[in-house]
């Protein structure tokens, strides 16, 4: 299967998960990601794998916990309000060091919000989201192809680091159709799942738990998790940049917003404005180093987000006061236009004499 096919993001990521060897999918419907469970309900049984439409999001994430504890590749998907409901389970997955892939096709919030596209769950995704001192790896793909490409990597990273990987899409990415190529590529070499609950015949019992009562044991466990997160931060950052070297204005954006930024920066260059962009692909680990390096020379940073400004805080942490960091945010389903971002860039640029 290497021909280009036209698929919507939701169905494409579902097929990519199947190709990546997802053994079990558990989920509860919510717009704008209903095509994922609908597709999985047909395809997973065809492949002899597990599909369960759960009675709630809480049940879905708990089923993910159970299936993952047996060493199976497992995932769930939902949209913002449903992901909020899953936070307890995600925290337990982190505590028990179980691999899982969680797809969030974000919609407008807070509360039930609307079903428009949004990037308003950045804080929730990149800060763990539930209670406790933990992290999740977060992908912020910006095209249907990239959504497809990050699925096998999400499963591999989940297994390698025994943690939850969140794929943070939005209503546009889930609903839009784009030509994609679906193909199975060789994955990472992964450690054996010798911690899994597979029946203790002939070996010591394995215990999967997030409860650490003896004095000092939880602190030790937390330090172990922290060391793991530091490895992820060191090794797994993905980021793309364009024309940053001579740029006076660097626009930082991810996901769908980054597509619009790319077009706006191209137009700015046509207008002889020295603009460039940095696009984080992993939102956690965040490309702090790349942004910090770009800020070593004086430039203006403009963050464009479909929210009232969340990633902008990570950009500020990376820039660390070396340069101004501004925000152009569109919350509640608003999508920035090319002209709108171009106007912002023009306002920030130093006029050149022609």
């Amino acid at each position, binding site marked *: 299967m290497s021909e*280009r096919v*036209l698929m919507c993001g939701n169905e494409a990521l579902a097929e990519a998960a199947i190709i990546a060897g997802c053994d079990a999918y558990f989920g509860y419907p919510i*717009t*704008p990601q209903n095509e994922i469970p609908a597709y999985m309900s047909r395809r997973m049984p065809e492949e002899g794998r597990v599909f369960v439409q759960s009675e709630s999001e809480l049940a879905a994430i708990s089923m993910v916990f159970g299936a993952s504890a047996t060493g199976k590749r497992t995932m769930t998907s939902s949209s913002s309000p449903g992901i909020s409901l899953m936070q307890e389970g995600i925290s337990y997955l982190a505590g028990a060091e179980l691999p899982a892939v969680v797809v969030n096709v974000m919609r407008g919030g807070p509360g039930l919000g*609307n*079903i*428009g*596209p949004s990037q308003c769950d950045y804080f929730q995704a990149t800060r763990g989201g539930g209670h406790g001192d933990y992290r999740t790896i977060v992908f912020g793909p910006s095209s249907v192809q990239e959504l497809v490409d990050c699925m096998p990597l999400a499963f591999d990273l989940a297994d390698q680091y025994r943690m939850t990987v969140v794929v943070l899409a939005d*209503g*546009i990415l889930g*609903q*839009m*159709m*784009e*030509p994609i190529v679906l193909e199975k590529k060789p994955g990472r070499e992964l450690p054996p799942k010798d911690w899994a609950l597979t029946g203790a015949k002939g070996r010591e019992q394995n215990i999967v738990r997030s409860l650490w009562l003896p004095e000092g044991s939880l602190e030790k466990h937390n330090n172990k998790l922290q060391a793991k997160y530091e490895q992820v931060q060191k090794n797994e950052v993905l980021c793309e940049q364009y024309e940053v070297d001579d740029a006076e204005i660097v626009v930082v954006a991810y996901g*769908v917003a980054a*597509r*619009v930024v*790319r*077009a*706006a920066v*191209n*137009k700015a260059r*046509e207008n002889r404005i020295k603009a460039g962009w940095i696009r984080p692909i992993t939102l956690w680990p965040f490309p702090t180093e790349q942004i910090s390096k770009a800020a070593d020379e004086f430039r203006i940073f403009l963050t464009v987000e479909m929210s009232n400004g969340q990633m902008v805080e990570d950009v500020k942490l990376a820039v660390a006061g070396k340069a101004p960091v501004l925000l152009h945010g569109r919350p509640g389903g608003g*999508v920035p*236009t*090319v002209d709108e971002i171009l106007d912002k860039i023009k306002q920030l640029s130093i006029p050149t004499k022609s």
Partner: protein
Amino acid sequence: MTANGFYEEIIIAGFGGQGIMLTGRLLAQTAMEAGKEVTYMPSYGAEVRGGTANCMVVLANEPIACPVVGRPDSLIVMNKASLNKFAPRLKTGGLLIMNSSLIDTEPQLDDSIEIITVPADELAVELGSPKSANMVALGAYLQKRGHLTPDAAAQALPDVLAKRYHKTLPVNAEALRRGAEFAKACCTSRAKKQ
């Protein structure tokens, strides 16, 4: 249009049952098979429940910025509500394909906009396939824009039409051609001003 050339943003709108989504997907599929960059974005919001349907298609020779179209270069409208909603958003110099079978008014638009009125339902009925009005309108659009041919669309049709409807492939191909012929014969209600 950009420095790299071709960049066309289209909105297709009508009511549920007119095959609006299929028309958009067919346009996107045809463009993909012709090697173009393309995005297709369906309306999935609350308005879908109200009976209206629209989708947005972007065709280009370069990576597409955003699949959400604010101001289209071209608009295909199959009913009056859609005309009222989307026509004011057309870009200067844009193209409006209007289903005159269900729209009895002449929209008050900027003189730069080219308006093609196509009696899509009547033409589809003449072909013995009333449901093919969408294909008639798409054929007219393809003829006017000239970047893809109605025959290429007919060839892409099996890829987007559910198998159970494949017996309608010939009549839909015919509807695409009929729409193109109608547009070619120039039913422009007013000349495009340069």
